[in-house]
């Protein structure tokens, strides 16, 4: 029962990721695309933790930690470029 609910939750999160990717395809300005990338990053961190639960390996959580830090640096670099500063 609990496993079924976890699987349904992961599929719902995956649908949210697909909706955010549709905005990345349409996106009229670059800021829209950066926002969509930000949302996809957060949802994929959640997916990584779900995969770590699903395959019962704690070491997969390290990937999520690295992922959160590095994606933050990437988003800030894009924002600084948009502001014409770096």
């Amino acid at each position, binding site marked *: 029962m609990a496993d079924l609910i976890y699987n349904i939750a992961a599929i719902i999160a995956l649908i949210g990721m697909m909706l955010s990717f549709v905005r990345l395809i349409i996106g009229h300005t670059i800021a829209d695309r950066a926002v969509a990338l930000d949302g996809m990053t957060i949802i994929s961190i959640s997916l990584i933790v779900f995969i770590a639960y699903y395959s019962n390996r704690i070491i997969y959580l390290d990937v999520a930690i690295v992922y959160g830090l590095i*994606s933050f640096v*990437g988003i800030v670099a894009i924002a600084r470029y948009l502001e014409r500063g770096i």
Partner: protein
Amino acid sequence: MISIIIIVLGIIMIMAAFLAIHLKNLLSAIISAGVISLLASVIYLLLAAPDVAMTEAAIGSGLTTIIFIFTLKKIKKGDLDD
């Protein structure tokens, strides 16, 4: 369950790669390339290779994007709209 996630992420990766080729604006293409390596990291994790996934997240999604943005700033002033 794992196969559903792999199929959906693979479809999104192919569409992002297609988008990275066809967009006119270079910064949008850089963001699309970032999406590709972001999802490739999750797929490496699904294929039970956490160290490769960690390297891909650090280099592919972080360092490559930043180096591309620095290069783009060197070579031209990007315009904002599509």
